[in-house]
């Protein structure tokens, strides 16, 4: 690494749960260090997935670091040139995304039973409904298409004439 790049590299001691481990403005990269106990891997994956189109993401794992705890290292490198401030903002957005993913995970876990129940009801309802195949029943009733058991095809005049003749004969 060049001297200028070295001078641009800022190391920050990890304070709290999420921290910028290194920020290298010359190489447009920032490394975050996350405590494994606080951020499940699904949360890290979720946040990394969101950032894949914005920057190059490389995940690493640090077993028993200086503090004796295992940590995930998230290396983010911008796809274009970014200033140190912009890199800091990007790492902040990543941290926000981590929290967002963690919250989503918590909500899904809390509502797991309700989600399953609603899904089951929806599937059961769909299964009990009328299916289009019900209308395709080709059961043969032994009738021709010209058969007219209800006399629908008989002209009105014929029906009327017969009745009138009958009535006239009675009178």
């Amino acid at each position: 690494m060049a001297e200028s790049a070295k001078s641009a590299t800022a190391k920050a001691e990890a304070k709290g749960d999420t921290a910028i481990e290194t920020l290298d403005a010359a190489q447009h990269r920032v490394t975050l260090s996350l405590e494994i106990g606080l951020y499940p891997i699904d949360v890290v994956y979720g946040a990394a997935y969101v950032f894949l189109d914005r920057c190059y993401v490389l995940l690493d794992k640090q077993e028993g670091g200086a503090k004796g705890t295992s940590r995930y290292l998230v290396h983010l490198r911008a796809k274009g040139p970014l200033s140190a401030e912009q890199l800091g903002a990007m790492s902040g957005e990543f941290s926000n995304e981590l929290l967002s993913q963690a919250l989503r995970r918590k909500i899904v876990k809390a509502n797991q039973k309700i989600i399953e129940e609603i899904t089951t009801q929806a599937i059961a309802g769909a299964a009990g409904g009328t299916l289009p195949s019900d209308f395709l029943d080709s059961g043969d009733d032994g009738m021709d298409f010209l058969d007219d058991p209800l006399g629908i095809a008989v002209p009105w005049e014929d029906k009327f004439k017969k009745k009138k003749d009958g009535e006239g004969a009675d009178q």
Partner: protein
Amino acid sequence: MTTTSPTPQTVQLHRALYMQQAIKEAAETFADFASFKIRRDGAYYAVDISDIDADTDGDVVAEFCNFALHHTIQRKKKRL
């Protein structure tokens, strides 16, 4: 993280975080731009990348890492 260069490079992807099948899939995707050799190296998959196409726009190695991560996440989601 590595930078694009025509010289061979080795990327180390942690085995706890990247799936071998996903790395293979990413290597197949980028087969036209470089040669990939995947091997185990302790807790890591070491990917030796050589014959990197110098005419290609962008960082082939970094894009390969992004693809490997993308495929890993996709595969993990399918497993759930």
